[in-house]
C-alpha cells in the first residue's frame, strides 16, 4: 500500500519533467528559427539637438545665432503637409493631352488631379512632382514611421500595425515640438498613438473601419480651412484616408475612386489658393495600391507613391523634367528638416533632395552648388554619426562595407572642407564633392536595406531541424510510453543537455564571443536530444517493425507526405486552394476503393461466386457498404462546397476571392441580405444542434459535470449573442438615429460577451475534462474479476474486440482506488457511463467553443464554412473508422 503511491508519484514527476523537456525543445527550436527569420533593427533613442552639430566643422552661414534656424537657415517658416493615404503615383501623373484621333483613356483614377497638372504647367519653377518609392512593408503605420524618422521600419514592426506604439526614435514631429513650433494635426487617428501629446491642436478621426469612405475626409475638410485661416499654426498636417478606404472597398477601377480623387483635387486647389509666401505645400501618398486596392507588399504598384511640392515663391532653378524623377520616400525627412531649419532626426538615413537647396532667384551657379553641397554634407555628417552609434550598439551591419563607407565619407568630408577654405574653388570640384556625398548616402541606404532585410539561413535551418527532431521524438515517445524501462531513458538526456550547455557556455566565454541565449538554448536542446535518439536507436532492436511507429493508416500518411512536399514548390503553394481539396478528395476515393478492394464495402453475398475461394481473413464488414459510400460522397460534396468560399492568398496573379467572403453590411439588396443572414444563423443553429445531437447520442449530456452544463446552456447563449451581433453589424446603417448609440454599444459588448463565455467554457473544460457519469454505490459486493489494465495499442483481433471494455475496467480500477482512498469503509461498485466517447466528447466541446471567437473575427458568411468543416471532420473520421478495423476513441485527425 505504501509503495504504490510512491512509484506513482515518481512516475508523475518523471512525466512532468518529460513534458517540460519537450516544451523546452520546442521553444528552443522556435526561438532559433525566429531569430533567423524575423528581421530586427535596433531602435536608438538618441536625439539630434539644435546646439549640437552632427560633426566637426562650422555650420554654413553661421546660422547658429539666428532665431528659427538650427543646422541651416530655414527657408520656409511654415509647412502644410497633406498626406493622402494610398495616393499612387499614376493617380497624380499628368496625362498627356491626347491627339484628336485618339480616344481619351477612361480609367477612373487617371487624370483626376487636374490642379497638379495645371500648376506644373503654369508655374514650373514653383512646383515639382516626384515618384517616391516607399520601402516595404507598405502598411500605413510603417510608412508614417518612415516618413517622420527617416529610417526603415522592418518586418518585425509590421506585426504591430493595429496596436501601434509611440515612436521612440528621433523624428520630425519631436524636433518640431522641441523647436517650439505649433503642429496642428487632423485626420487618421493612428497619429494619436504614434505621437501622443505632440500636437498643439489635433482633430483625430477613427481609421479602423475601412468601409467608411467619408468620415475622416469630411472631418478634415470641416476643420482644414478655418484652421488655416486662423493662423495659429506652423506646421499643418492633414491625413486623408478616403482614397485608401475606397481602394480597399471598391478597388481603384471604380467610379467612386474618381469621385474621391476629384475631391482631393479640390482640396489641393483650395490649399494652393490660401498659401502664403513663407509656406511650403507637400502632397504625398504614403504608399500605392495593387490593382485590387490592397497594399502591404513590395510590388511596384504598392511602393510607388506620388510626392508633390509647391511653394508660392520660386523654388527650383530648372523646369521640371519630362518624366518625374524617382526619389526614395524617406528623402523627404532630411529635406523638410533642413528646409524648416530643424536638426535632421538622429536615425535618418535618407538623402536630401539637393535640387531644393539650390537658390532659384540667385542665378549664380557657384553659390547654388555650394548650398547644395553644404546641405548634403550636413546630411552625410548626420548619417555617419548615426552609423557610428548604431554599429557600436548592434552587430548586424556588415563590417567590411561599413569600413568602405566610412572611408568614402572621410574623403568627401575632407574635400568639402578644402573647398570651404578656398571659396573660389572650381565648379567641377564642387560637383565631385556633391557626387561623393550622394554616393556615400546611397551606399549607406543600400547597406541598411541589405542588413535589416536579411534572413539568417543557418539559424532558420537549424531551428527547423530542431523542431522536426522534437516532433520525431514525440512520435517515438507516443509509441514507447507503454513499454517498461522507458523512464530511465529520460534522465540521461537532461543530464547531457545540462552538461553540453555548461561546456558550450564555457567555450564561448573563453573564446570571448558574445553569449547568445538563443544559441545556448539550442545547444542544450541538441545536447539532450542526441543521446536520447542514440539510446533509442541502440534500444530499437529488430523485433519491432518500423510500421508500428506510425499510428496513422497508410493512405493518410501518404497524402500527408504529398501535401508536405507540395510546400516546397512555389506553383503548388500558389495553387494550394485547389491542390488541397484534390488531395483530400483523392484520399477519400482511395479509402473507399481500398474498402472495396478488401471486400469490406459491399456485403459478401454480392461477391461470392461459387468458384471463387475467399480467404477466411477477409473479415466481416463492420458497416454496411452503402454507409461508407454515402460518407465518401458527402465528404466530396462538402469539399467542393467549401471551395466556393475561396479566399486568395496575397500577391497571387489572376485570382479572385469569393464574393461571399465580404461582410453582409456591404450588400445592397435587402432581400438577399435577409436570406443570407438567415442562412448564417441557420448554419450556427445547425452546428449547435449537431454537436448536441452527437453528445446526446453518446449520452454525454447526462453527466452533471460543469462542462456538460455549459454545453447545455452556454452554447445556445453564445449562438444567440453571435446572431444578435451579426444582425447589428449588418444592419447598423439602417438603425434609427436615436438608437445609434445603443447599437454601437451593443456591437462592442456582444462579441466580448461571447468571447468571455467561450473562455469560461474552455476553463471549465480544462478544469473537469472528463464528462463521465460516475455512480458509486456502497454495500454491493464486487463480483467481477478485474482484468489486466489495458496497455499499448491492440495487437490481435481478440484484443480489438475488447478494447472498450478494457478501457472501462481500467477506469473502473482507477476510480475505485480514488474512492477507496477517500472513504475506505466497505466495498464499492462503480458504474461509469459514456466511456466510449470520453476523449472525443471533451474534444468536440473544446472545438465548438473555439469556433465561436473565430467566427466573430470573420465575416458572417464564414459560419457556413465552419459548419462544413465540422461536417467534414465528422465524416472523414467515420470513413476512417469504417476502413480501419478499430480506432481507439480520441483519435482525431486535423483537417488540412
Amino acid at each position, binding site marked *: 500500500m505504501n509503495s504504490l503511491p510512491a512509484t506513482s508519484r515518481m512516475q508523475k514527476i518523471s512525466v512532468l519533467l518529460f513534458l517540460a523537456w519537450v516544451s523546452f525543445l520546442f521553444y528552443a527550436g522556435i526561438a532559433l528559427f525566429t531569430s533567423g527569420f524575423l528581421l530586427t533593427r535596433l531602435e536608438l533613442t538618441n536625439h539630434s539637438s539644435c546646439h549640437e552639430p552632427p560633426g566637426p566643422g562650422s555650420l554654413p552661414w553661421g546660422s547658429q545665432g539666428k532665431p528659427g534656424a538650427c543646422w541651416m537657415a530655414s527657408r520656409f517658416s511654415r509647412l502644410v503637409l497633406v498626406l493622402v493615404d494610398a495616393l499612387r503615383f499614376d493617380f497624380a501623373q499628368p496625362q498627356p493631352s491626347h491627339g484628336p484621333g485618339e480616344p481619351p483613356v477612361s480609367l477612373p483614377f487617371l487624370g483626376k488631379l487636374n490642379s497638379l497638372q495645371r500648376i506644373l504647367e503654369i508655374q514650373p519653377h514653383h512646383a515639382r512632382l516626384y515618384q517616391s518609392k516607399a520601402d516595404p512593408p507598405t502598411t500605413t503605420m510603417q510608412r508614417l514611421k518612415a516618413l517622420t524618422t527617416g529610417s526603415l521600419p522592418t518586418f518585425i514592426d509590421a506585426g504591430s500595425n493595429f496596436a501601434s506604439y509611440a515612436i521612440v526614435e528621433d523624428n520630425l514631429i519631436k524636433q518640431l515640438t522641441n523647436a517650439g513650433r505649433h503642429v496642428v494635426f487632423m485626420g487618421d487617428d493612428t497619429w494619436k498613438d504614434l505621437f501622443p501629446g505632440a500636437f498643439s491642436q489635433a482633430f483625430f478621426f477613427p481609421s479602423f473601419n475601412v468601409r467608411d469612405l467619408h468620415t475622416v475626409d469630411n472631418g478634415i475638410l470641416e476643420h482644414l480651412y478655418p484652421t488655416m485661416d486662423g493662423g495659429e499654426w506652423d506646421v499643418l498636417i492633414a491625413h486623408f484616408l478616403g482614397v485608401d478606404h475606397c481602394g480597399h472597398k471598391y478597388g481603384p477601377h471604380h467610379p467612386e475612386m474618381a469621385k474621391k480623387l476629384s475631391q482631393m483635387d479640390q482640396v489641393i486647389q483650395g490649399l494652393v489658393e490660401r498659401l502664403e509666401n513663407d509656406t511650403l505645400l507637400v502632397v504625398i501618398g504614403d504608399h500605392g495600391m495593387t490593382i485590387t486596392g490592397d497594399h502591404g507588399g513590395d510590388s511596384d504598384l504598392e511602393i510607388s507613391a506620388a510626392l508633390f511640392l509647391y511653394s508660392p515663391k520660386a523654388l527650383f532653378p530648372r523646369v521640371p523634367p519630362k518624366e518625374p524623377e524617382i526619389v526614395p520616400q524617406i528623402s523627404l525627412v532630411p529635406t523638410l528638416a533642413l528646409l524648416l531649419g530643424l536638426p535632421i532626426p538622429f536615425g535618418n538615413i535618407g538623402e536630401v533632395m539637393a535640387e531644393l537647396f539650390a537658390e532659384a532667384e540667385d542665378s549664380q551657379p557657384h553659390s547654388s552648388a555650394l548650398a547644395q553641397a553644404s546641405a548634403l554634407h550636413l546630411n552625410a555628417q548626420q548619417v555617419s554619426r548615426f552609423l557610428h552609434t548604431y554599429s557600436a550598439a548592434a552587430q548586424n551591419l556588415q563590417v567590411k562595407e561599413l569600413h568602405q563607407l566610412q572611408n568614402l565619407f572621410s574623403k568627401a568630408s575632407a574635400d568639402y572642407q578644402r573647398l570651404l577654405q578656398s571659396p573660389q574653388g572650381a565648379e567641377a570640384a564642387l560637383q565631385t564633392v556633391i557626387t561623393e556625398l550622394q554616393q556615400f548616402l546611397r551606399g549607406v541606404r543600400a547597406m541598411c536595406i541589405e542588413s535589416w532585410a536579411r534572413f539568417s539561413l543557418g539559424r532558420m535551418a537549424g531551428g527547423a531541424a530542431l523542431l522536426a527532431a522534437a516532433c520525431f521524438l514525440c512520435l517515438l515517445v507516443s509509441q514507447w510510453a507503454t513499454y517498461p524501462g522507458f523512464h530511465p531513458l529520460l534522465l540521461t538526456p537532461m543530464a547531457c543537455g545540462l552538461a553540453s550547455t555548461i561546456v558550450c557556455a564555457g567555450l564561448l566565454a573563453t573564446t570571448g564571443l558574445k553569449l547568445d541565449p538563443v544559441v545556448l538554448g539550442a545547444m542544450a536542446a541538441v545536447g539532450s536530444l542526441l543521446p536520447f535518439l542514440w539510446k533509442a536507436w541502440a534500444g530499437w532492436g529488430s523485433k519491432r517493425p518500423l510500421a508500428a511507429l506510425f499510428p496513422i493508416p497508410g493512405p493518410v500518411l501518404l497524402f500527408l507526405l504529398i501535401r508536405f512536399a507540395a510546400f516546397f514548390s512555389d506553383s503548388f503553394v500558389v495553387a494550394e486552394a485547389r491542390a488541397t481539396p484534390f488531395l483530400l*478528395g483523392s484520399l477519400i476515393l482511395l479509402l473507399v476503393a481500398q474498402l472495396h*478492394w*478488401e471486400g469490406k464495402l459491399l456485403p459478401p453475398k454480392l461477391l461470392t461466386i461459387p468458384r*471463387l475461394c475467399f480467404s477466411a481473413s477477409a473479415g466481416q464488414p463492420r458497416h454496411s457498404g452503402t454507409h461508407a459510400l454515402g460518407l465518401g460522397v458527402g465528404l466530396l460534396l462538402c*469539399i*467542393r462546397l467549401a471551395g466556393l468560399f475561396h479566399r486568395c492568398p496575397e500577391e497571387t496573379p489572376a485570382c479572385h476571392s469569393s464574393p461571399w467572403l465580404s461582410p453582409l453590411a456591404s450588400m445592397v439588396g435587402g432581400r438577399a441580405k435577409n436570406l443570407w443572414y438567415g442562412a448564417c444563423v441557420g448554419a450556427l443553429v445547425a452546428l449547435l444542434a449537431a454537436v448536441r445531437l452527437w453528445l446526446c447520442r453518446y449520452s454525454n449530456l447526462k453527466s452533471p459535470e460543469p462542462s456538460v452544463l455549459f454545453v447545455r446552456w452556454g452554447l445556445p447563449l453564445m449562438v444567440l449573442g453571435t446572431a444578435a451581433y451579426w444582425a447589428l453589424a449588418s444592419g447598423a446603417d439602417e438603425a434609427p438615429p436615436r438608437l445609434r448609440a445603443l447599437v454601437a454599444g451593443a456591437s462592442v459588448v456582444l462579441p466580448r460577451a461571447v468571447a468571455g463565455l467561450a473562455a469560461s467554457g474552455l476553463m471549465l473544460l480544462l478544469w473537469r475534462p472528463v464528462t463521465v457519469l460516475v455512480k458509486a454505490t456502497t454495500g454491493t459486493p464486487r463480483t467481477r474479476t478485474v482484468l489486466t489494465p489495458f496497455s499499448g495499442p491492440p495487437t490481435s483481433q481478440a484484443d480489438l474486440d475488447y478494447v472498450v471494455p478494457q478501457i472501462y475496467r481500467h477506469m473502473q480500477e482507477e476510480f475505485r482506488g480514488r474512492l477507496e482512498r477517500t472513504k475506505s469503509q466497505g466495498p464499492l461498485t462503480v458504474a461509469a457511463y459514456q466511456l466510449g466517447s470520453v476523449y472525443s466528447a471533451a474534444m468536440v466541446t473544446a472545438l465548438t467553443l473555439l469556433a465561436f471567437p473565430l467566427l466573430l473575427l470573420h465575416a458572417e458568411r464564414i459560419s457556413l464554412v465552419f459548419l462544413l468543416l465540422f461536417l467534414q471532420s465528422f465524416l472523414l473520421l467515420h470513413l476512417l473508422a469504417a476502413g480501419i478495423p478499430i480506432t481507439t476513441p480520441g483519435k482525431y485527425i486535423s483537417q488540412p
Partner: protein
Amino acid sequence: MKDTDIKRLLYTHLLCIFSIILSICIPSFFLENFSILETHLTWLCICSVFVTAVNLVLYLIVKPNASSKRSSISYKVTRFLKCCIYFLMSCFFFHVIFVLYGAPLIELVLETFLFAVILSTFTTVPCLCLLGPNIKAWLRVFSRNGVTSIWENSLQITTISSFIGTWLGAFPIPLDWERPWQMAIERKKMCRSFCVPGMVLGTVTQ
C-alpha cells in the same frame, strides 16, 4: 493454352497503343490545322472513337470469354443497348467526379465531359467488352482475389493504371498558368504512358 493467351494479350495491347498513335497521325492528313495541342478537343474525340473501334474489333475477333449460349438477335441488341447506356452512365459519373475534384462547374463543360468520355473509353469499354454489362462481375474483378483469368488480370491492371495515370496527370496543372485545359492532354499522355508499362508488366508476370 496459357501461352497462346499471353500472346494474344500482348497483340491486343500493342494494337491498342497503335490505335492511339494512329489517332495522332491520321487526322493530320484529312484535317487542316490539326495538332494535339491546338485542337485538343477534336483529337480527344478522334482518339476515343479509334480506341473504342479497336476494342470492339478485337473483341469480335479474339472473343476472350466463351460466348453465351443464347445468341438470338434480340438478346444481342438488348445487350448492345445496355452497353451503350452503361458507357453513357460512366461518362456522366466521371464528369461528376471531376467536378467534385475541382473542375469548374459551368465553364469548360465540354472539355471536362470529353475528358470523362476518354477516360471511359480507356476503362469502361474494355470492361464492357470483356465482362459485358454485368456490374457484379466488375465489382468482383476489382477486388482482392477476384480475378479468375489472365484477361481479367490484365483488365484490372490497365484500368487501375489508367486511373492512377489520370490522377498523376493532375499534378502538372498548377505548373501551367496560361493554358489550364491543355493539361487534359497532359493527363491523357500521362495516363497512357502509365498504362503501357502496366500492360507489359501484366503480360510478363503471367
